[in-house]
């Protein structure tokens, strides 16, 4: 069995099938791109894997264990972390505060240590702050970590969202359209960071509307249309796949 595997997964909202009997395999260490027109079920897929929705039918396996029907925080603890498309940060906090709140899984001491401000807690906190700064550097996220997070530009907010996901020490990172609303240059900047993260051994599932972004980064691409998978393979092959071209016809022909 693969590293992360979806078997025959369906998700219905009333009569509408957002995902219909989908099978998907993800191998360790790859960057899997998921493309598809709007409403093809890409984000539903992420919501299912991360536990935000429960599948109507089917199973999700991670490292040979069933993970569906668990709460999002339990799935995060197993090492599958996601980002959101919008709504990416804790409003009202600074960059470092955002990173520290989301570093929940990085703290080893229990709450009462911090209540009494013990030495162990101070060390632990320093470590978490160190890790946060490390991530800020990894993603070139601006040097000033004391800026108000919701005052950052759109692109930096998205990057901060990725940094926050990384604080949970993911084995698999689910990125939900990290480059929407960016120009090509900015998108390439983010793609570059995604490659960097992947080099550290993190498996990445990258949802993307724009196929051009995926070309340089994905090792494999799957295309969804109306909740079903219509193509799966090397990026170039998927792009020239007749069904994919048809699905994209009129929107963004490659």
């Amino acid at each position, binding site marked *: 069995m693969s590293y992360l595997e979806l078997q025959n997964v369906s998700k219905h909202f009333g009569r509408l099938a957002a995902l219909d009997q989908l099978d998907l395999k993800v191998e360790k260490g790859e960057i899997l791109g998921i493309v598809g027109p709007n409403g093809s079920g890409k984000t539903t897929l992420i919501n299912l894997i*991360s536990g*935000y929705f429960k599948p109507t039918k089917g199973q999700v396996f991670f490292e040979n264990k069933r993970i569906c029907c668990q*709460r*999002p*925080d339990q799935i*995060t*603890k197993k090492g599958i*972390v*996601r980002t*959101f498309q919008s*709504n*990416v*940060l*804790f*409003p*009202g*906090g600074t960059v470092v*505060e955002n990173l*520290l*709140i*989301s570093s*929940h*899984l990085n*703290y080893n*001491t229990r*709450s009462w*240590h*911090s*209540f*009494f*401000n013990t030495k162990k*807690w101070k060390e632990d*906190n320093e470590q978490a702050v160190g890790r946060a700064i490390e991530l800020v550097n990894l993603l070139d996220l601006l040097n000033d970590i004391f800026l108000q997070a919701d*005052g950052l530009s759109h692109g930096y907010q998205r990057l901060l969202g990725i940094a*926050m*996901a990384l*604080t*949970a020490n993911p084995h698999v990172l689910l990125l939900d359209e990290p480059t929407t609303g960016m120009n090509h240059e900015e998108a390439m900047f983010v793609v570059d960071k995604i490659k960097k993260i992947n080099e550290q051994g993190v498996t990445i599932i990258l949802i993307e509307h724009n196929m051009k972004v995926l070309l340089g980064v994905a090792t494999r691409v799957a295309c969804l249309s109306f909740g079903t998978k219509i193509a799966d393979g090397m990026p170039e092959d998927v792009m020239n796949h007749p069904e994919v071209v048809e699905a994209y016809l009129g929107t963004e022909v490659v």
Partner: protein
Amino acid sequence: MMQFFKTIHLMDYKNIVPKLVIGLVVAAIVLLPVVTKDVVILSMLIFSGLWAVAAMGFTLVLRTGQFSLGQSAFMAIGGYTCAILTVQMDFPFWPSFLLSGIISGLVAFLLGVVVLRVGGIYFSIITLALGEIVRIIALNWESVTRGSRGLVTSSPLPISIFGWELANFDASPVPYFYFMLCLVAITGVVFWRIGDSRLGQIFAGVALNPELAEHQGIHLMKYRIIAFTIAGVFTGYAGALYTHFLTVITPMVFGLWQSIQAMIMSIVGGISSLVGGPIIGGVLLYGLGDRLSRLQTPGLSQMVFGATVVLVLICLPKGTGLVELWDKFWKKVVWREVEYEHDEMED
């Protein structure tokens, strides 16, 4: 040495002076019984202190993003537990008092497990209804609560050390006053530490963006329940002490109004501070209500109270309570500082 004073003079005096003033006010309150043993003043302070504890409980729950309208229900549960144990079952005061908070916390925990899963307005509605339910049970469970006649409690036995009487609860309100100060101080310290610690940080995450927090591995329910339970425990203690100071508990003592009052104290006092805001709100609003209820005109006091609160809410800018006025007072009135906020605008 010279250098040391210079640094203090330049850097910190703006920080230290307000704190010194707060310290002096606290010291004055602690030493107040030396100056006056006036029952009216002391009991006003005792009641407002206990309401401040209830308001702190509200603020703590609000820190996790939930709007609890059941603070007086927990005061009633604490009060009735203590009264039933001492009056109906002849328990000594101190163990009963200890139990009252625990029982109240237990109810909060059980209710929280069920209701906090949904949260939001549903939570507010259910906690509001809980207050009415507690009142109805207290009114009708005659064999235990004696219905509308209520339970008349006796004061705790005098505390004496080596034959020297340290505190006689029957003789004057002073021991109650210090008892209240201890409760407020303990609650204040616990809540301050919670707000400052990792727990406070997690609460902020849970309140500000629950979805994101959950996907970062934070178990929302766990932290909401922790906050609600802790608030329940301390509010229960406040209720028990309230009952014993009042010497009677009837179903009318804690009701819908009182819940709303605790909430309003917290919000008007300022929710940015877990301890200061509720205390300021509790003292000022209880004082106001107490003054107004002396007017002897039915309804006038509630009307003026409600109008005052609405006016305060309209006049204070968003997200601030009276506690923020303290900082503003020092910055604008005392130091006459110029606003520096233009820098941010240019970004």
